[in-house]
C-alpha cells in the first residue's frame, strides 16, 4: 500500500522521483538502455570487474605472480632498467617487468584492479551506510540530535576529503592489512554529502500523508525509516553512490601515489605511478599502463554514474535539456 501511495505522492516533493518499486527496476533498465554512452561504460566496468575477480586466474595463465622479484630481468649495472626491448616484454612477461625489482607488470596491473575496485566499493558501501544512518537520524530525530548531527556533517563536508583521509592515515594502527585500512578511512571521511542529501529528503518526506499516517499509528522511527522512507530514498542515494565510486578510486590512487595508501608489495595503480617518472624512457609502459587503467576506470564509472542519474531522475536530466537543441525549442 505504501508503495502505491509513494508513487502517487512523490511528484510534489522534489527533483528526484522515486519510481514505484514494482515497475521501478524495469523502468530503470529501460531508461539506462537508451543511453549509448552509459551502456558502453557499463560494459567496460563489467570487464574491469571481471578482470579484478579473475586476477589470480589471469596471472596463473601467464605463469607469473605480482610479488616475485626477478633480479635477472633487470640490469643492475644501469640502475635496474629492464633487460630487453619494450621494458622487458616477452612471452613470459606480457607487459614487461617493473624496473629495479623485475616484478611482472601484467600481474601487478590486474591485481591493482582488485585493489582499486575493491577499496572503492568497500569505501562507498561504508559512506552510504554512515551517510544514510546519520541523515535519517538527523531528519527524524529531535532538534538537538538534528543540530548535533548536522554540525558534524557540516564539518565532514567542509574538510577536503584528501586532507582528512591523509591525516587519519597517520594515526590508525599499522597492523591492519593496508587496503582494508585505506577503504575504512575513505569510507569514514566521505559520508558528508550523502548525509546531507538524505536529511533534506527525509525532512521533505516526513510531511507526506503516508508517513504521517504511519507516525499516528504509533510506528517507531526505525520502522518508519525502513518501510516508508528508504524506498523513496533509494533513487537519490543510488545516484549519489554511483558517482562516489569513481571519486573513491581517485582518492585511493592519490593516497597510494603519496606513499601513505596501499604500500608495496601489494600492487596498486597509484603506487605504481610513484616512481614511474624516473623510468619513462627505459620502460614507458610502466607509466602509461597504470595511468591508462586509472583513466579508463574512472571515466567509465563517471559516465555510468551520469547514466544512472539520468535513468533514475529523467526529469532533472530533461530539465537540463529543455531548450538546448534548436529543434526542441519550439516544443518547449
Amino acid at each position, binding site marked *: 500500500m505504501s508503495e502505491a501511495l509513494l508513487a502517487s505522492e512523490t511528484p510534489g516533493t522534489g527533483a528526484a522521483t522515486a519510481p514505484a518499486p514494482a515497475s521501478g527496476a524495469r523502468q530503470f533498465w529501460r531508461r539506462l538502455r537508451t543511453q549509448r554512452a552509459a551502456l558502453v561504460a557499463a560494459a567496460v566496468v563489467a570487464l574491469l570487474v571481471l578482470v579484478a575477480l579473475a586476477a589470480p586466474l589471469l596471472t596463473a595463465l601467464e605463469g607469473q605472480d605480482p610479488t616475485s622479484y626477478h633480479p635477472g630481468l633487470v640490469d643492475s649495472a644501469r640502475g635496474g632498467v629492464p633487460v630487453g626491448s619494450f621494458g622487458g616484454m616477452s612471452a613470459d612477461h606480457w607487459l614487461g617487468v617493473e624496473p629495479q625489482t623485475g616484478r611482472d607488470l601484467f600481474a601487478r596491473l590486474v591485481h591493482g584492479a582488485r585493489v582499486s575496485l575493491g577499496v572503492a566499493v568497500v569505501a562507498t558501501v561504508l559512506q552510504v551506510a554512515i551517510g544514510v544512518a546519520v541523515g535519517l537520524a538527523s531528519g527524524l530525530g529531535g532538534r538537538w540530535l538534528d*543540530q548535533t548531527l*548536522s*554540525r*558534524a556533517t*557540516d*564539518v565532514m*563536508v*567542509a*574538510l*577536503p576529503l*584528501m*586532507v*582528512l583521509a*591523509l*591525516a*587519519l*592515515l*597517520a*594515526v*590508525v*594502527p*599499522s597492523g591492519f592489512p593496508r587496503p582494508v585500512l585505506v577503504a575504512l578511512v575513505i569510507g569514514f571521511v566521505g559520508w558528508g*554529502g550523502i548525509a*546531507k542529501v538524505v536529511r*533534506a529528503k527525509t525532512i521533505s518526506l516526513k510531511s507526506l500523508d503516508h508517513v504521517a499516517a504511519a507516525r499516528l499509528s504509533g510506528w517507531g522511527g526505525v520502522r518508519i525509516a525502513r518501510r516508508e522512507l528508504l524506498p523513496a530514498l533509494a533513487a537519490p542515494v543510488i545516484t549519489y553512490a554511483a558517482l562516489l565510486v*569513481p571519486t573513491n578510486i*581517485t582518492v585511493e*590512487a*592519490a593516497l597510494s*601515489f*603519496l*606513499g*601513505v595508501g596501499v604500500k608495496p608489495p601489494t600492487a596498486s595503480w*597509484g603506487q605504481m*605511478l610513484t616512481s*614511474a*617518472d624516473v623510468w*619513462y*624512457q627505459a620502460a614507458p609502459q610502466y*607509466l602509461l599502463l597504470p*595511468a591508462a587503467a*586509472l*583513466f579508463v576506470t*574512472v*571515466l567509465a564509472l*563517471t*559516465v555510468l554514474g551520469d547514466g544512472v542519474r539520468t535513468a533514475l531522475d529523467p526529469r532533472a536530466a530533461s*530539465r*537540463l*535539456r*529543455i*531548450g*538546448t*537543441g*534548436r*529543434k526542441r525549442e519550439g516544443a*518547449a
Partner: protein
Amino acid sequence: MTATLSASVATKARGSLGGLLGGGFTGFVLRRVLGALVTLFVLSVVIYAVFYVAPGDVAQITCGPRCSPAQVQQVSDQLRLDDPLYTRYLDFLRGIVVGHDYSTGTGVLHCDAPCLGLSYQTDQQVTELILNKVPVTGSLALGAMVLWLILGVGTGVLSAWRRGRATERILTGVTLAGTATPVFVIGLILMILVCGQLQWLPFPQYVPFTDDPQQWAWNLLLPWVSLALIEAAKYARLTRASMLETLAEDHVRTFRAYGVKERSIVGRHALRGALAPVIALSANDFGSMFGGALLTETLFGLPGLGRELVHAVRVVDLPVVVGMVMVTGFFVVLANAVADVLYAVADRRVVLS
C-alpha cells in the same frame, strides 16, 4: 555541495535565531558569521577528538616502533595524554588565544599566541611552520585559480551557448576526460613531455617571487597548468549545467519572446544566474588550498603546505597534522562565509530567500 553547506548553515541559524538578529542585510551577515563560528567550534572539537581518541596508541605511534616503554611514557607526559580529553582540549584552545609554554627536560619552549602546538619532530612552532609554507602554496593556488576560472567558466559558457552542436559535444567529451584524469597523471605526463623530452621548461623548483619574479612564474608555469586543467574541467561542467538550468527558466523564455539576442541572453542573463554555484565552489576550493595542493606539490617537489602535511603524516608528527587539518577547515569555513556575504552584496535576493 558547498552551496548547500552554506545555505543550510544560514537556514539553521535563521531557524534558531530568527527574530533575535533581525532581518535585512545586517541580520543576514550576522547570522552567517554566527553560523560560521558555531561550525568552527564544532570543527575544532571533532578534529581534536578524532585525532586524540584515535584507535591507536598515540604515544607509541608518535614515538615510533623502536621506543622503549620509558620513552613512550615520556612522550605521553609531554603530550599529557594521561589527562582527561576535555582539559587537554581546553588547553589547546587557550594556546590558540594566549599562547603556551612547554617545559622540556632542559628549559621552557615558548609558543606564541595562535599556538597550535610544537612539531614533535623539530620542536618548531606549528603556526610558524604553516606560515612559512603559505607563500609557496599561495603562489601555486592563485596562479592556477586564475587559469582555471578563465578556462573553466569560458568553456562552460561556450558549451552552453553552442548547445546541441558539435562544439558542445566535443567540449563535453574533453571536460569529461578532464574530470576522469587524476592531477598527478596529467602532471606526470606533462612534466615528462615538456621538461624531459622537449626541454621547453625546467623541472619546477620553487623560486620566491621576491627573489626573481620571472623565474618564479617560469618555474610555476607547469604546476599551474596541470592543476588548472583538472580543476577547469570541474568548473566547466558546473558552469554548463547551471547555465542550462537557468536557460530553461521562465524569465529567460520571456527574454526570448521579447526578441533579446541569444548572445546577450547567454552572456548576460544566464551567466549571472549560473555564477552562484561557481562562486561557492571557488570559495571552497580556495579554502581547501590551505590543506595544500597535496598531489601537485608532491609531484613537482614544491615545498608548500601540502608537501608538509604529507611529510608530517609519513613521520607521524601529530601536532603538525592536527594543526594543518584545523587550519584547512578554518579557511574553508571562512571562505564559504565570505563567499556567501559577497554574493549577498551582489544579489540581495539571497538575503530574502
